[in-house]
C-alpha cells in the first residue's frame, strides 16, 4: 500500500479505509522505535474496538507497547501469519505486515486521523 494514501494516528498506526472496512497496521517509524520485535498479541475476530483504545500489544527485546485502534468498529479479520512472521512488520509494514481489518462503525472516528504530511511533521517534531 502506498503510504501517501493512508491515514495515521498519533500513536503510529496507519489506516486504509475502503468500503467501510479499515485495514490497520503500524508505521515503519513505529517499527524502528520498537527495535527487534519478539511477540505480538492480536485480538479475536469479533472484538469491538474503539478509537484511541488498545486492541493488542507488541513486544520487543526492549519494551512492551500497546497497539491502539485508530477507528471505532468490529474486528473482522486478523493477520494470523504475523505472530510467526514478525519480520513482515519490518520488511512490509504497509502491505503483508497489516495487523487487523475493522468494519468501521463510526465515520466520526476517522476525522482525527492525519495524512502522511501531518504525520511526518509529528515525528519530525519528536526528534
Amino acid at each position, binding site marked *: 500500500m502506498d503510504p501517501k494514501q493512508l491515514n495515521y494516528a498519533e500513536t503510529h498506526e496507519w489506516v486504509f479505509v475502503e468500503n467501510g472496512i479499515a485495514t490497520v497496521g503500524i508505521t515503519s517509524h513505529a517499527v524502528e522505535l520498537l527495535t527487534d520485535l*519478539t511477540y505480538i498479541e492480536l485480538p479475536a475476530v469479533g472484538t469491538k474496538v474503539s478509537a484511541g483504545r488498545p486492541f493488542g*500489544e507488541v*513486544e520487543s*527485546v*526492549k519494551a512492551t507497547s500497546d497497539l491502539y485502534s485508530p477507528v471505532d468498529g468490529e474486528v473482522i479479520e486478523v493477520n494470523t501469519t504475523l505472530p510467526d512472521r514478525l519480520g513482515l512488520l519490518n520488511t512490509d509494514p504497509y502491505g503483508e505486515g497489516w495487523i487487523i481489518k475493522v468494519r468501521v462503525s463510526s465515520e466520526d472516528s476517522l476525522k482525527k486521523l492525519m495524512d502522511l504530511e501531518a504525520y511526518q511533521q509529528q515525528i519530525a517534531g519528536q526528534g
Partner: protein
Amino acid sequence: MVGTTENCLKTSLKGWHVARGGRMVEFAGWLMPVQYSSIIEEHNATRSAVGIFDVSHMGRFYFDGEGIEEFLDGLTTRRIIGIEPGRIRYSLMTNEAGMILDDVLVYRLPEGGEFPYMMVVNAGNRIKILDWINSQGRGKSIRLHDRTTATAMIAVQGPKACSVVAKLGTVNPADLKYYACSNGTLCGVPALVSRTGYTGEDGCEVIIAADVAAEVASAIEGEARKVGGLPAGLGARDTLRLEAAMPLYGHELTESINAAQTNLGFAINLKDRQFIGRDAIVAAKAANLPTRIGLAIEGKRAAREECPILHGGQRVGFVTSGTISPTLNRAISMGYIDPAYAAVGTVVEVDIRGKTTPATVEALPFYKRAD
C-alpha cells in the same frame, strides 16, 4: 514516546554514534545510542566476537586527600582498606538504613599516577553520589574530582575483545587479572585499561581523554569489525547484563531495597568493619525480606518491571527486569520474592499486563560463558 533530547548531556562520542546510524535516546540525562543496526545483532556480536560500548555517561570520580582509604571504606559495603594498587572492587553504597544508593566500582589506581583512587558510578546517580560523598567528607581533607566529562570510557566486550585491544596498545587486557587495571597507551594516547565489564563476557573497559575518544573508538571498531565485532548500544547492554544476572540500578537496586536482599553477598563484607548502613544490613539479614531471584517465564512474552509474582493467587514478589533472551531465545526475568518461594525450581506465576503466566524460579545467572 521519546521526549525532548535538547537538554541532554552528550558524551564525546555523540557524533561518532550518529555517524554510525545510532538511534539516540535520553538515558539518565544523557543522549545515548539505544542501537545502531539491531539490538539482537549487537547482542550476538558481543557474545560471539566483540561489542563496543560507549559508557562515558557513567560517572568517574577521582579522589585524593589524607585518609582517603578509610573514608571510602566507610561508604562502601566492600572492604576498600588494603586493596592492592591496580585492583578494582565492585561494591554497593548504602545509606544509614542499609538501602542502596548506588552500585559502584572502586579502583585502587596503579602507583605513580595522579590519584590513588577512582570510582565509577551510575550515570543516573552521579549528582546524588557526588553530593553524598561531599556531605560525608565535610570537615575532612578529602577531595573529589569529577572527571566524567573530561574523560571518555569505552567498554570492549566479548571473547575477542582482549585481543582487539591488545593489538592497539601497550596493555594486553588478557594479561590482567579480572578486576585489575593498568596504565598504558592505546592508539598512542594514555589509557587506563581494566579487565571489567557488564555483559557476562570477557573483555575490558578503557578510560581515555575525551578529546581523543572518537579516534580511539574508530581504531577499536576497525580491529573489531575484522573479527565480526560491532558497535553496540544500550539495548544490547541491557539484554547482555540481564542474561548475566547483573543488577541494574533503578531496577534490581533502589533506595527501597536493602543490600541484604540482593544476593550480592560477595559485595558485602560485614566482618570486623564499620560502614554506613552496616548495622541495618545485619538487621535486614535476620528479617524475612524478599530476595533477588531469576525467573524462567513460560511462552514468548517478557515479564517486565513491576509485574507481580503470584503464588496461589497471592502476591509474593515483583519483577524488576525482563526480556526475551537473545542468547537463550526464551523469556527471562529478575525480581524479588518472599524467601519461602525463592528456592530454585519453585513454580509461581507472573501477572503480565493482566495475563497470569506460569514461571519457575531459576538459578542465576541465566547465561554463563564457557571458560
